[in-house]
């Protein structure tokens, strides 16, 4: 795409946002390698344009449901990087109080109803959230991002059928990073993929280059406008590539190094930088953006490292109102 006619201010902000995601995850990986992130971490390095283009196209009061690879989506929706980093480290002050971690990151105040540890589970919850908005007579919409692996689970069919049947305002986004955990999705998928499957149910669906920020954004905005117009659900298939492993601990040696090297040439951050340079933005200005993003996330990590762990009583809070079996003294005894 030519960079001559772009809105430099807006694209610069998007470039910053993509770098915030990249820096957040790089800092989280550092923390993981240092032993400060106790659980699994699924980076979305290489997929940042999807988060920025798609989540950036909805309003703060719209609803978002994400995947176990959802740091970028959550940041773009407006969650605090500091609270997110605390969550990854299992600290008090985490957006879920340290009780969810990376796979359950959520910030209901910005309409982010959760990452999910079960592939495909959020398709149904998203359909239900949209169903509630319909019952309540609200005009907000729901965006559900899921991975390419999810299209082979039953909930994909059930949720799409449901949303179409009740004409619900949901944008289903298949963020296709080509891998179902550590297996190529193409090796485990029959037929022509998510677009064809959605179209079979009468849902308008389209594929797009998930690393082309502006083209993807234009497509997303068009689909969102159709949904806001009462058109019912839409499906967007954003084709990208997971540049790192399934988890931060996965070296991804199941794919040739040459393939990965070639895919780094399509890194959406580099493509966006190219776009801005083409529009006359100086390299130094771009470097400043990268540095700013990096410093913000290093600060967030330092804050999270210094933050206290939640009190042990938090292990027994927010289970259910009506209860009597949770005995913190028992847990304390076990710990002693």
């Amino acid at each position, binding site marked *: 795409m030519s960079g001559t006619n772009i809105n430099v201010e807006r694209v610069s902000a998007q470039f910053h946002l993509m770098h915030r995601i990249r820096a957040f995850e790089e800092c989280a990986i550092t923390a993981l390698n240092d032993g400060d992130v106790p659980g699994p971490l699924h980076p979305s390095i290489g997929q940042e344009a999807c988060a920025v283009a798609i989540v950036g196209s909805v309003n703060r009061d719209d609803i978002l449901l994400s995947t176990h690879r959802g740091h970028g989506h959550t940041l773009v929706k407006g969650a605090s990087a500091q609270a997110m980093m605390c969550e990854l480290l299992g600290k008090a002050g985490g*957006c879920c*109080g340290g*009780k969810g971690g990376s796979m359950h990151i959520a910030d*209901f105040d910005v309409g982010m109803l959760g990452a999910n540890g079960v592939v495909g*589970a959020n398709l149904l919850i998203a359909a*239900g959230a949209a169903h509630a908005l319909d019952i309540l007579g609200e005009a907000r919409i729901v965006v559900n991002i899921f991975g390419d692996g999810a299209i082979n689970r039953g909930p994909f069919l*059930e949720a799409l059928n449901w949303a179409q049947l009740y004409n619900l305002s949901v944008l289903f986004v298949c963020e296709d990073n080509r891998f179902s955990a550590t297996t190529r999705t193409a090796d485990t998928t029959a037929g022509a993929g998510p677009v064809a499957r959605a179209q079979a149910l009468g849902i308008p669906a389209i594929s797009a280059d998930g690393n082309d920020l502006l083209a993807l954004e234009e497509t997303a905005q068009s689909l969102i406008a159709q949904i806001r117009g009462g058109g019912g659900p839409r499906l967007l298939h954003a084709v990208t590539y997971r540049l790192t492993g399934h988890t931060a601990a996965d070296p991804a040696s199941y794919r040739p190094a040459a393939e990965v090297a070639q895919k780094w040439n399509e890194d959406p951050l580099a493509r966006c930088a190219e776009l801005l340079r083409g529009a006359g933005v100086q390299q130094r200005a771009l470097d400043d953006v990268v540095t700013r993003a990096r410093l913000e996330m290093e600060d967030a990590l330092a804050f999270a490292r210094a933050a206290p762990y939640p009190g042990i009583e938090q292990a027994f809070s927010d289970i259910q109102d*009506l209860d009597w079996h949770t005995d913190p003294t028992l847990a304390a005894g076990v710990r002693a």
Partner: protein
Amino acid sequence: MSVMTYAQASAAAVRAEMIRDKTVWALGEDLGRGGVFGQYTGLQAEFGTKRIVDTPISEAAIMGAAVGAAMMGTRPIVEMRFSDFALCAIDELVNQAAKARYMFGGQTRVPLVVREPVGMWRASAAQHSQSLEAWYTHIPGLVVVMPATAADNRGLLAAAIRSDDPVVYMEHKDLWTETGEVPDGDHVVALGKAATRREGKDITLISWSRCVQECCAAATTLATEGIDAEVIDLRTLWPWDREHVLTSVARTGRALIVHEAVQVGGFGAELSAVINEELFTVLKHPVRRLGAPRAPIAYSPPLEAAVKIAAPQVAATVRRMFG
């Protein structure tokens, strides 16, 4: 008071709660025609298709959509048709509904009720007859309720709909046509409270759902033999009314737990364990359990009857505890 069936009582509860709270709605298969057992009769005509929603045969979607809708501030009543079919939606119930409040650090609540009709009824065989309540009591985050009377189906269902946490609400199919007196007006039975159905001084029979009737019938027989049995209807399995049960057993010194579910790993084992832990020194006899043999439920009536708990077995078990 009005005399109505267990099914009618549940419809009265749903209707009253839907009038009381505009965010209450129900979703499931065949609700428009009144539900498989008539427990939704007349409701779609009164409230329309947007609040009594006929769904595809998509159990995972029914439950999963309800989770999302509950998180957005509505109160869905999820109809699973048969509790056996809820197994198609177990991720949505166990991993999603039961966990959301906790794993999101209290940012959300999931105020849904999932109605799961249980039990043996009209030779429904292995996939339409099970009682799997023990599974749900094992899951932190879930409330588990099993009404045994029409009045309780009115009052407990109302309470379940008002609960801010997910409730697994298991009605027994063999009780749909049972009639009873149901209080008029806003009848709500508190969750977590047991009821004494018959007072007695010699032994405490603890049961729930259909088997409460069997215990009461057994107690009537035993009374003619000089054994005075108390019958407790647990009503809510989680959290169960520990004080009510322990007070009774401390007084009688004997406890028999009776349920239709398979005895192995059944909820009776939990009750037995707690009674032993708390009352070992006052027990006059080891706590006993009476549940189904660990066999799938057969179609043929004599084979089904071979695994169905009935009053004569309850009475026989009690007699052995006095032998």
